[in-house]
């Protein structure tokens, strides 16, 4: 992790502030004392982000439920406090239903969460650690539960409301109500969630501060205009409504932020004397939330919510005048600019047309969808079934069309700008430029602002350009389970080739392209790669070619390279056989197999085999060939290898002693899934490799394996050290 860096930066910033604002510090000793106190406090209550190294093991004993247990199909999930640890518990078909605050006796195996094994991959272990949770338990048996907290009654009430609604309206409308009013978006269609993410509209699918504002605004109008309550009484009533609303809406960070801010504003409006700036209110809410739960700082929605709100509040002067369209455009632009470094850090890309989509969908959701859903929800409890059914029908009619539009537009690659995971220095420089830009804009120095904005964009090209001065050859064998995918990055970014895009063979559908979506694409994007020069498919088995279509659609390879024995209608397909060669700068890929006679062989033995040569470095890519082909190659070509990609995931039918003796590799890499059904890699293969003194690397143990070759030296990097 970051070690002492945050502390160092904190101390540095604090000293700097004291020096710059010497006078202010001397004139306001209380302010200084407060600042010092909160700084010290932050050192004490800072979250601990260490990982658990080993499984906790079998546990039978007491657990206190500290979250509202969620039911997802047959599965129950909750966070439990066990001794001094927080554990994420999953339980299938539980007999007992725990509540928030219950004390339960459980029986379970408590283990460490799955960590990422590839660069760029989502890290579930870190995700949980950022919430202070170090362990998970997947198959928990809950023996008995007793007691519950005061809050649990609200949660139950919420559940009852949800059940009432679900019984009366269509599943489609309910999914949206559940997402936008209750903060649970599990029911939304996956393609819509993905599409909204792509277009930077995710904030609309969760309950954002905007939603809270609209909801409270509506409440206020209804109470003060349509009832006989005085303005003061309506305010008091809203003060009671807000906390209830926060709980019903699932208490996500943006809701907490907006709700607490509203409480502050109303309370302050009662006290005519004290006038606080909105920035002060936001800062106070920020500190209060962090003191209550310091882990919030690591939540994406917390970071995005506060960054955007802070930026928009500071831009009040810029947003005061102008047409509705201009103001909306400015809001979009400022919001996008302020979260850009975070966006790149977490998602490696940004959507340059996101502002246009926001321009359409933000008003649509604010003016139509939210009030519509609110009225459907209310009518469930007030009006007869027919009215509900009509509203339900009308909503689906309109909403389905609006969702179809965004799905039809799809994910055009011209809208995406892939930059990769940015360097810390670049992010800091961007932050300074952004402040300067906003200052110049507001002060009316438009020319200067224009120049700075060009610098701000140019900065990300520096990030991208850093790859072009890296003169090493990089080969990364990704850990894609019982499948295969290897990325070859040529020196100075002169070319990118991907060898195989395999998917694990699964019997439950819905995750057909898991490797591509969760590992291969994030890896490439994190390195700032959005186009590739070639995709080399060794053969057409799913574990090597499962996501061929996906990689073609997303990365537009100039060449699709494969063996000639499969009839495929692909415009850029180049079929290759023994004797052919691809040269790309100083790098050569010499193909050694298959030849024409191999058509009669099974798919594995039709695999493309090639040797990658650069300078003094030789690596053999073998697909899934067996001994027969291996020996033919070994005898025909005099090979002296540095690295051997072991054929067929370490199956005993390949990697013969002859091959090893003839080619003499130093290192052997096996792409193999953890505890796979085939028993790969075969112990005899491992023995043969060991006997030859070859270093064995395997993706199931080492994670992704990366070899970097520069100036005659190769260095090895295993993701799991």
């Amino acid at each position, binding site marked *: 992790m970051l070690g002492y860096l945050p502390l160092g930066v904190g101390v540095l910033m604090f000293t700097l502030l004291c020096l710059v604002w010497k006078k202010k510090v001397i004139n306001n000793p209380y302010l200084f004392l407060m600042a010092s106190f909160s700084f010290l406090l932050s050192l004490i209550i800072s979250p601990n982000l260490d990982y658990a190294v080993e499984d906790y093991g079998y546990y039978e004993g007491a657990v206190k439920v500290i979250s509202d247990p969620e039911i997802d199909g047959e599965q129950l999930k909750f966070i439990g406090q066990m001794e001094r640890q927080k554990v994420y518990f999953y339980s299938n078909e539980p007999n007992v239903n725990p509540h928030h605050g219950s004390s339960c006796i459980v029986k379970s195996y408590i283990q460490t969460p799955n960590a990422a094994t590839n660069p760029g991959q989502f890290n579930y272990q870190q995700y949980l650690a950022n919430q202070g949770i170090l362990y998970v338990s997947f198959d928990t048996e809950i023996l008995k539960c007793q007691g519950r907290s005061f809050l649990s009654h609200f949660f139950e009430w919420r559940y009852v409301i949800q059940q009432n609604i679900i019984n009366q309206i269509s599943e489609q409308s309910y999914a949206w109500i559940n997402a936008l009013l209750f903060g649970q978006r599990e029911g939304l269609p996956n393609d819509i969630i993905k599409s909204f993410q792509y277009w930077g509209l995710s904030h609309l699918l969760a309950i954002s501060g905007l939603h809270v504002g609209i909801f409270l605004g509506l409440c206020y109008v209804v109470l003060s205009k349509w009832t006989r309550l005085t303005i003061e009484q309506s305010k008091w009533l809203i003060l009671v409504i807000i906390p209830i609303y926060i709980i019903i809406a699932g208490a996500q960070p943006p809701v907490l932020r907006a709700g607490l801010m509203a409480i502050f504003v109303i309370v302050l409006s009662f006290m005519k004397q004290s006038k606080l700036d909105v920035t002060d209110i936001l800062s106070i809410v920020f500190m209060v939330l962090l003191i209550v739960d310091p882990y919030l700082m690591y939540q994406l929605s917390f970071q995005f919510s506060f960054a955007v709100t802070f930026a928009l509040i*500071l831009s*009040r002067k810029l947003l005061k005048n102008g047409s509705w369209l201009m103001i909306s455009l400015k809001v979009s632009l400022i919001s996008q600019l302020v979260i850009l470094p975070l966006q790149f850090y977490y998602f490696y890309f940004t959507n340059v047309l996101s502002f246009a989509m926001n321009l359409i969908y933000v008003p649509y959701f604010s003016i139509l969808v939210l009030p519509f859903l609110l009225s459907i929800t209310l009518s469930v409890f007030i009006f007869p079934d027919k009215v509900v059914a009509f509203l339900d029908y009308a909503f689906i009619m309109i909403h389905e069309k609006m969702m179809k539009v965004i799905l039809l537009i799809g994910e055009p690659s011209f809208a995406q700008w892939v930059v990769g995971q940015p360097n810390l220095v670049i992010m800091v420089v961007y932050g300074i430029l952004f402040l300067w830009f906003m*200052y110049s804009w507001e002060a009316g120095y438009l020319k200067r602002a224009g120049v700075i904005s060009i610098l701000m964009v140019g900065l990300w090209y520096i990030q991208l350009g850093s790859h072009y001065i890296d003169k090493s050859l990089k080969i990364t064998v990704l850990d894609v389970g019982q499948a295969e995918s290897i990325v070859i990055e040529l020196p100075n970014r002169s070319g990118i080739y991907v060898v195989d895009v395999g998917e694990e063979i699964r019997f439950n559908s819905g995750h057909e392209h898991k490797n591509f979506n969760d590992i291969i694409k994030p890896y490439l994007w994190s390195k700032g790669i959005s186009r590739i020069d070639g995709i080399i498919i060794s053969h057409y088995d799913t574990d090597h070619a499962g996501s061929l279509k996906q990689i073609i659609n997303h990365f537009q390879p100039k060449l699709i390279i494969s063996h000639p024995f499969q009839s495929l209608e692909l415009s850029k397909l180049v079929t290759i056989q023994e004797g052919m060669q691809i040269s790309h700068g100083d790098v050569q890929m010499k193909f050694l197999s298959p030849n024409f006679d191999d058509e009669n062989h099974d798919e594995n033995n039709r695999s493309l085999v090639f040797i990658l040569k650069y300078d003094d470095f030789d690596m053999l890519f073998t697909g899934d060939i067996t001994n027969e082909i291996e020996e033919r190659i070994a005898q025909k070509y005099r090979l002296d290898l540095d690295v051997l990609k072991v054929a067929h995931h370490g199956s005993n039918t390949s990697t013969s002693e002859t091959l090893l003796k003839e080619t003499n590799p130093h290192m052997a890499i096996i792409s193999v899934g953890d505890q796979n059904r085939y028993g790969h890699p075969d112990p005899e293969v491992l023995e043969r490799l060991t006997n030859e003194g070859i270093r064995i690397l395997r993706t199931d143990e080492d994670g992704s394996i990366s070899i970097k070759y520069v100036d005659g030296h190769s260095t090895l990097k295993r993701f799991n050290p």
Partner: protein
Amino acid sequence: MHCLICYQEIDSETTWTTIFEINQRVLCDVCQSRFERIEDMSNHCCEKCMRPIEQSISICGDCYAWQERLGGKDPLHRNVSIFNYNSFMKDVMALFKYRGDYELVKVWESDVKTTFQKCFSEKFTLVPIPLSKKRLEERGFNQAEAIAKLIDPNTAFFIERTHTEKQSKKTKRERIFSKNPFKLKGIPSSHILLIDDLYTTGTTLRQAAQLLIDSGAKVVQSLTLIRS
């Protein structure tokens, strides 16, 4: 916070331009905009006294006349002024000087500080133009001293003044040819910066400058709040 001049509530919204501003604002936007800074209103001024003049000449007629009269040995090297003497400024000065609203000096604090930093260096010793004892009793404070203390709170007087008629009650001719009313109190340093509220004809400043030059100062310049 209320505006020091019009007592209206100051709109204290924090925005991108004010987020790093640590000094509390003392003026509302309206009053702020009614002061005219010489810098902002004209791009060509007399090199010596900062009076706005035509592009083609480098020093104004008055300064030229001073040079003639003093035989090229003008004791005042240069004057820097910040504001124009418009009617709003006249009203504020009346409040400040004659009604004794000392707090108003804060209105000019940042302008005086930045102008000093821009045009002068730390090697200058600040010398505010003194008032006579009688006048000081009448007013309760010295406006030049108040302005000097914005730059350096430890400013002391090097010179003192024997009582004369108020400058504002004299004609231009009387002012130019009046007797030097200043007396030296100590030994001046080599670089002197005279501080006063108004530069009208420059007589007072030149009388003080002459005294300082005669007693050994090498360079005497002046910083005045207003060029009238």
